[in-house]
Each structure stands twice: as C-alpha cells, then as structure tokens.
C-alpha cells in the first residue's frame, strides 16, 4: 500500500496478471492505478454509473484535448462530451487511447490463428461488464494505461516498448459517479507488457477522509 494514502484509503486491491476488475467510484473519489511490475498495460473503460449508456469515448476525449496521448490534466469524456474522470497525477508521462483492447479476434489478425484461443482483454471486459448488466454493445475503444503507442509522420502506428516502470502511478478523480471496468491485459504477443503480464494495484481514495 502506498503510505501517502493511508488516512484517505477506502480500498486497495491487487489485480492479478491477466485478470479483470471493476468498481464504482463516487463523485470526488480518486482511483490510483499502480504499475507494480512495470510495463503492464491496463485496459480501462468507464461509464456514468447512473446511466451506463453514457460511456467513455476515445474520440470525444481526443477531439476535446486535441491530442492523442493521455496524461495529467486529461479529461476522460463520454461520447456526448461530458467529463467522467480527470487525470490528476501521472508519474509515467503518457498513456494510449488509440489501440483499444486486444481480443481473440484481433489477435488472429495481428499474430495469426494460433493465438485465437488465448485469453484477451475483451473477454475480461465481457465477463466483468456482465456483472453490471453490460454486454458487447457497451464495449467501445478504451484507455490503455502505461501502453506506448506512437504515431509516425506517415501515420504508422503501433504498440512499442513501454515507458513505464515498477511503482509508477496514474491517479484519476471521478467527476460524477463512475463505473470502472479494468482488464489487466493478458497480451503476451507484443511489447505492451514486456511479453510478461504482471499484477497492478487499484487504490480507491476519498480525499478529505470520505463522506
């Protein structure tokens, strides 16, 4: 546990390598996501907890901030443009929201049909989302915390070696009540996890000691 948060801590939970996680943040609460082993992609979707038809939009977020990278100050927005979460601290530097989640299906295109039966982020989102009544239609392009996806001048884009390290952390403030779905990415075929998925820590904080 991060001692800096001890007085404000609500929950701290280590998500095992490859596993899903979900929680609801009350407005004003903060979620810290800590990269324990370093270079671990954390696939992330969020919804207005009171109306899950209002959900994260990578496109609306990018258009509003005029930049493809997420870092301190970035506001994660619904497709209608409403703020869901604000990045209030980031010791990594930048995060991706272009690449979306890995799936058994997209793995078949990226690496070959031999990867079809590997566990993937979309499986985690479907299983964890089902607990909240969400289905496939509710899954859209997501955030990838700690994943490094540069775009070259000619448009070439790809997941490359990460810029994260053990202990780095991104912290989000809930601007409304927010349902968060997490897939601690199981991908073993590209550098997003250094080819070796590791656990991440989720810390829910109530600044001021909670309600």
């Amino acid at each position: 546990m991060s001692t800096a948060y001890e007085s404000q801590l609500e929950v701290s939970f280590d998500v095992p390598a490859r596993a899903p996680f979900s929680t609801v943040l009350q407005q004003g609460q903060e979620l810290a996501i800590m990269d324990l082993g370093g270079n671990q992609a954390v696939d992330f979707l969020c919804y207005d907890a009171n109306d899950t038809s209002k959900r994260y939009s990578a496109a609306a977020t990018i258009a509003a901030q005029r930049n493809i990278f997420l870092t301190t100050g970035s506001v994660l927005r619904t497709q209608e443009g409403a703020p869901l979460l604000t990045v209030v601290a980031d010791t990594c530097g930048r995060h991706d929201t272009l690449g979306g989640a890995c799936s058994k299906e997209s793995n078949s295109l990226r690496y070959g049909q031999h990867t079809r039966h590997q566990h993937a982020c979309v499986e985690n989102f479907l299983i964890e989302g089902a607990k909240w009544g969400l289905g496939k239609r509710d899954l859209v392009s997501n955030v990838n915390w700690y994943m490094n996806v540069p775009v070259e001048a000619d448009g070439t884009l790809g997941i490359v070696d990460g810029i994260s390290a053990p202990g780095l952390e991104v912290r989000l403030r809930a601007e409304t009540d927010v349902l968060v779905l997490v897939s601690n990415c199981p991908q073993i075929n590209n550098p997003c996890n250094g080819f070796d998925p590791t656990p991440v820590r989720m810390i829910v904080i109530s600044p001021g000691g909670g309600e």
Partner: protein
Amino acid sequence: MSTTATTYGARDHARAQAGTVVDTMPSIPASTWADPPAGVAPEALTWAETVAGGGYTHKVLARGTRLRLTDVDGDACAHLLLFNAEGPWERLNVADTVKVQWNAYLGESVALLSDQARVLATIVADSGGRHDALCGTSTVDGNTERYGDGSPQGPSPAGLPLFTLAAAKNGLEPRDLPPSLSFFQGVRVQPDGGLEFTGSAGAGRSVDLRIEIPSIVLLANVAHPVDPRPDYTVSKLEVLAWHDRPTTPDSPEWTHTPEAQRAFENTADYLTARGIA
C-alpha cells in the same frame, strides 16, 4: 378562403408538389440519377442521393456493392458507421482498424474492420487523402458551445444526434454507436501527439468503398469536431452505390498486408458458414 381550407383543396395542393427537384435529395429509383459513373449502367445503381450539409442518411447495402462518396463543393465531411446487417452487434471497430493495420490514417486499400476481425468494407479508391479515424463525430454540447446550437433541427447539427436518428431507424440504440470515421476533412498527428487539422483536399474528391459483408451504412454530413473555422462550414455530399463484386483472393486489397489477408480469410470463413457467399 384559401385553396387549402378544404380537404380537397389541401389534397390537390399536396399532390401538386410531387416532382419538385431540389439540390439535395435522393433519386428514387436510383436508376433515374442523371449522371451515372463511367462504365456503370443506370439500372445497376442502388443508391443515388445528395445529402445537404447538416444532413444524414442511411441504407442497407448488399455484399459486393461499391459505394462512392463525393465531396462536391469541397466542404463536405462524411461521418461513417458500419454494422453487419445480419447481426448489428458486430460493427465497425476503429481501434482495431488502425491498430491491426499499423496505420492511423485512412486511404486506399485500408480495410474497415469489425470487432470480429472481419472486413465490413474496403477503401478501394481515394482521391481525397484527408480523412480521420481519431476524433469521431461532433456532439450537441460541443456544437452548442462553438456555433450556438447542436440540435438536429437547428442550423448547425452535430453528428451524434444524427447518428442516433439514423441508428434508431435501423432498430439500433445510442449504445450501439461506437466511434466513427470521417472522410474529406483530415487530421494529422504531430510528434508530441497534438492534432493538426488539415481541412479538405478540395472540391470533387471522392472515396470508394467496397462492401464485403451486408452492412447497415449510417452517414452524417456535419462539420468535423476539430474544424477550427468559426462558422459551421459543411457543403453537400454526393452518395452513389451500385452492384459490383466483392474483394476476392485475386484482388490487390486481399493481400495488401498480412493482417488484411487474414481479415479477408476470416470474412470468407464467416460468409461461407452463413451461406451468404
């Protein structure tokens, strides 16, 4: 007393309007379109329409359809969504489209991928070169802030409510709307991740899509969400579609990249099992 004060007069007045031709409207049947593309028989046309700036349209297209979007006057912006007509929970996946093909920009031979690793449509010709897969479409609040109004009935409609209407007419709900693509108003990524708006490539440019799986096509012709111009600027969009042939293993698009080849193989596998091809 006016001529429309009686039912008979009102009926005559309404019927007398038939046959009116305006600048932005569909031609029905499509074969009546005055100017078919070179080499295309008028009776092969299945969709012929000019969409006003701020307007939207939609159609279900067969596999093997060629869909041509034309920026007639140089300020169209065609926002596009695609769904598998046989099961619309399979739909355009912009993240997979850019990630799987290792490119953030749209152009000739790019496959528009579904979330099931199949090709819904292929870009087979492009004289525009300025398109966008990153910013999605515009919102009511965003347009209201920038232009004073974003509602569908107002002077500066946003793309999201127009997509919502087009989706509803195909039995789809707001949660069926993923991020969309836009054609004819481009964006480029700077080294620091910032976006540069490139605008249009000019009047008369067009993009041709080949439909690979029977698809619900939603189109909204609205100003791009990061268009920096102070006025809501969007001109008419021409939409033509005609019966053609789908991509086959001897088409250059099939082997354009190893990823595209597997996507076409996945598509053929699905269509064969489904009994569509």
